[in-house]
Structure formats: C-alpha cells, structure tokens
C-alpha cells in the first residue's frame, strides 16, 4: 500500500469504531479519520505481517456457519450442565492436523474454537501443524475433526 495508507482495513475499522463510540457527525468523521491515520502510521512502525484477504465474499458465509454452530453448542453445553452427573459423559483431547499456515487465519480459527462452547483450543504446534483441542462431550472424535476442518477450509479460501 502507499505511504499514507499502510493499513487500509485497520484505518477503516478505527474510523468506524470512533463513529460508534461517538455520535455520527461530520466533525467526528474528520477527527476520527485523523486519529485513524495517525494510529495506522504508528502501527506501520511495528511492521506487523500484513494479512491479505483474498475472498471477501466468503466472510459472511463463515460468520453464518460459526453463528449457527455457537447457537447449537450453547444449547448442548447448557443441557450438559443442567443434567449434571445423571448422564454419562466423556470429555477428552482431540489432535487435529491442520494445513492452514496463515497467521491471521490461525488467529481467527482460535477465536472460533474458543468462543464455541464445548471446544477449547489448548495448543498449536507450528512445526508440524498439529492442534490440540479439548472437547467437553466427546462422542465421536471424527465429528469434531470434521467440524474444525470445515472452518479450516473456509479460512484457507479466505486467507490463502
């Protein structure tokens, strides 16, 4: 990108954030834009790896898939807590080999896996790409591998 706009997405998000925190007005738009430009200049001094989004059109689909899964697992985990010890339940560790290597993609995957009740991201081994997650209600290991693989394939289309 050019010198004045090193991180266009970051700059745009900062302007939107400023306008959400304040009322929308021309004055706040200008003030927010100046602050966003200054902040992205400061960010470029840190030189973070620039994430490249290749397929914007896949993002709504990913959000929808994750939203539906979060609704389902909220009900599932609430049920497990309510049933207490009356029901036999196995929790356990699942190792998933990942092909996704993009850092931003992995960060988004961590957010998804963590915010879905019932799965917790424990450890990622960057040398061999193996992810260790903990599953609260482990009936079939393959189901959980398929779930994470589905997010992974969407993220690979978006970021790689």
């Amino acid at each position, binding site marked *: 990108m050019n010198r004045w706009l090193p991180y266009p997405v970051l700059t745009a998000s900062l302007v939107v954030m400023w306008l*959400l925190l304040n009322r929308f007005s021309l004055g706040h738009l200008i003030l927010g834009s100046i602050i966003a430009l200054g902040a992205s200049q400061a960010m470029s001094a840190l030189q973070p790896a620039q994430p490249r989004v290749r397929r914007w059109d896949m993002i709504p689909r990913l959000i929808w898939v994750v939203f539906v899964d979060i609704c389902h697992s909220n009900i599932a985990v609430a049920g497990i807590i309510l049933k207490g010890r009356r029901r036999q339940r196995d929790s356990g560790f699942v190792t998933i080999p990942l092909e996704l290597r993009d850092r931003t993609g992995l960060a988004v995957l961590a957010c998804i896996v963590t915010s879905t009740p019932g799965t917790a991201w424990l450890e990622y081994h960057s040398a061999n790409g193996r992810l*260790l997650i903990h599953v609260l209600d482990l009936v079939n290991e393959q189901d959980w591998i398929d779930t994470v693989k589905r997010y992974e394939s969407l993220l690979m289309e978006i970021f790689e």
Partner: protein
Amino acid sequence: MSHTTDLPAWVALIVAFLLVLGSGLTLLGAIGLVRFQSFYERVHAPTLGTTWGAGAILIASIICFSVLQSRPVLHEVLITIFVVVTTPVTLMLLARAALYRDRTEGTPGVPQFEAAGEPGAERPGTSD
C-alpha cells in the same frame, strides 16, 4: 433510568426476554464452573457467558437504547468484538500452563509432550 416507561410494551417484552436468556446462560456457565470435575472441563463452562450470555444482554441493550433514543445505538458491537478477540489469549495462557503442569507431573489421560520430529508424528502435507 427515568425514561423506561417510554418503552413500548412489545419492545420491553423482547428486551426482558433477552435479558433473562443472557443472564440465565451466564448463571448456567457459573454453575458449570463449580460442578465440573477437571480443569479442562471447567474451561468450557464460562464460554456460555461470553457467547450467548453476553450476546443476548448486548442485543437487549442495543434494542432498548435504540428505541429510547430513536437512533441506532451500536457501540455494544465493540464490546462483543473485544470479548471474542481477547478470550483466546487468556484461555491459551491458562490451558498451556495446565498442560505443562500435568505433563511434568505425569497425570494420566493428558497427551504427552510432542516434539516436532517425533517418529510417528504426521508431517504436514503427507496425509489427512
């Protein structure tokens, strides 16, 4: 909250339903935190509070104040984003500390240390 009476009944009903749903799920998460047996199981319970628990309360807040002030009040969206983005950081910190403790103590049922060149470990791109 002097303007609460200005809220139309149907809006009040939706807001009340979302508030009960959100706080109920957060309470369930807290109960789960007490009831579950191991550290790794307990980690799952509070996620109820950070997803639909916080989500429903924030949607209720958006609806309530948007109707009261007759303009979209959306800054609650920022809370959602920051909650989602920051939870993995603390979770990984706690989980990896717990894993390290259990592995060094040799607790049964916990996956062992994994070396990158370990025999039997799948290399990326070979299978699966």
